[in-house]
């Protein structure tokens, strides 16, 4: 068993490969040259790589490869109905369906839209429950556009799923994606007149813990939050060691539902890692306290890590993967205790996804 890390960048896709030790890395690529790869993921069901790809001239699409990136096929059908008045702006996140849902994947995109494929990515259908959501006129774009960047599937309840849209908030479906309800109670929107609205929150990343699926975590424009009731209510978690509630990436340890990792930025006004260094903050008590992990990370850095730039593998001793806008991929083979720079001088990194690979 080894690990394959897909690194999406502003200028193509890279892949890094290592054995279980995760200390020596071999770099492959770039693939998909000319494309900005907002997110790339291996579908664990069939090992197909799917990439959300964007180009300033040729638009937004999704590519897939069944031969580890040697050849790529582009989606044949991907767009929004004319009567919605919406046009596809960017593709942001591909989420493979559950085991047994053959051919099904979900795609989050801008402007705040969700697609589903049931044929492995050849044709994508807009999901009306989000595309035609009755509250859409109260959604607003964040600095990166109105992006649907997070899609979380409940592994135990096939009808339950969540999406995160900036700046519309978190939405939950209990009917397989037919309809969605806002799930933002307790999350702040300090930039709106009502700081705790029903929706309009700027969620930056939303994750579900696979071992305890009623538990959700989110890194928001206005704080770090945890929900223990499927998003019905949220508890704000910063303080107690976190220097800032503002940030984008979030990672979870698949073994421990009380553990989470964030890389905060100084503030919305100054989007660099705080205190002039790159640090990862870890909680192991559900967010009650946070500790700074820096061993092997640069101690003179004004970095930033994008919302998709953080990943966890599922080996027995999990590794963590962190890609920076400065083009470095940092790896911790021991769950955050120590870090090494597996690649440097890549184009600005937009996404990181680690997959066990033999």
């Amino acid at each position, binding site marked *: 068993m080894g690990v394959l890390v897909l690194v999406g960048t502003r200028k193509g896709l890279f892949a890094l490969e290592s054995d279980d030790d995760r200390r020596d890395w071999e770099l492959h690529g770039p693939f998909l040259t000319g494309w900005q790869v907002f997110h790339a993921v291996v579908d664990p069901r069939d090992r197909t790589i799917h990439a959300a790809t964007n180009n*300033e001239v040729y638009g937004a699409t999704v590519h897939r490869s069944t031969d580890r990136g040697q050849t790529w096929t582009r989606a044949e059908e*991907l767009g929004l109905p004319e009567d919605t008045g919406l046009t596809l702006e960017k593709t942001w996140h591909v989420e493979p369906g559950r085991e047994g849902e053959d051919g099904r994947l979900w795609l989050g995109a801008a402007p705040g839209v969700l697609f589903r494929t049931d044929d492995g990515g050849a044709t994508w259908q807009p999901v009306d429950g989000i595309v035609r959501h009755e509250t859409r006129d109260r959604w607003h774009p964040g600095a990166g556009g109105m992006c649907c960047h997070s899609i979380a599937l409940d592994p135990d309840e096939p009808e339950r799923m969540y999406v995160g849209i900036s700046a519309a908030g978190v939405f939950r479906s209990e009917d397989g994606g037919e309809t969605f309800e806002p799930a933002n109670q307790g999350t702040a929107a300090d930039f709106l007149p009502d700081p705790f609205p029903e929706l309009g929150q700027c969620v930056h990343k939303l994750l579900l813990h696979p071992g305890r699926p009623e538990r959700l975590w989110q890194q928001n424009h206005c704080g770090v939050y945890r929900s223990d009731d499927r998003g019905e209510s949220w508890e704000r978690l910063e303080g107690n060691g976190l220097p800032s509630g503002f940030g984008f990436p979030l990672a979870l340890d698949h073994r421990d539902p009380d553990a989470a990792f964030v890389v905060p930025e100084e503030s919305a006004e100054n989007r660099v890692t705080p205190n002039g260094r790159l640090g990862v903050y870890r909680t192991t008590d559900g967010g009650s306290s946070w500790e700074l992990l820096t061993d092997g990370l640069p101690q003179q850095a004004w970095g930033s890590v994008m919302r998709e730039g953080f990943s966890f593998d599922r080996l027995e001793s999990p590794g963590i993967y962190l890609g920076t806008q400065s083009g470095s991929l940092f790896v911790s083979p021991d769950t955050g205790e120590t870090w090494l720079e597996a690649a440097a001088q890549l184009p600005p990194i937009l996404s990181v996804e680690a997959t066990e690979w033999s």
Partner: protein
Amino acid sequence: MVVVLLPSLLAAEAGGRNRFELDAPTVGDAVRALPVANLVLDERGELRRLVNVYVDGVDARDRGGLDAPLAGAETVRLVAAIAGG
């Protein structure tokens, strides 16, 4: 018969092929016959804003855009406008 020439990214998306010989009465017919039509055209079927099409060196937008006739034309060249970083 008209020769359609693609820039490098579109050629890569067309399986490495940068030259197509087509029978097409209009620019739109020629573009829609390409395997990269959905990169050249948006979801409404319109020419993407930053894609330029030159018919024997003349900007097709000055001759009716996708409706520009190709009768007597020899070469259609697709060019990405200068953009990006």
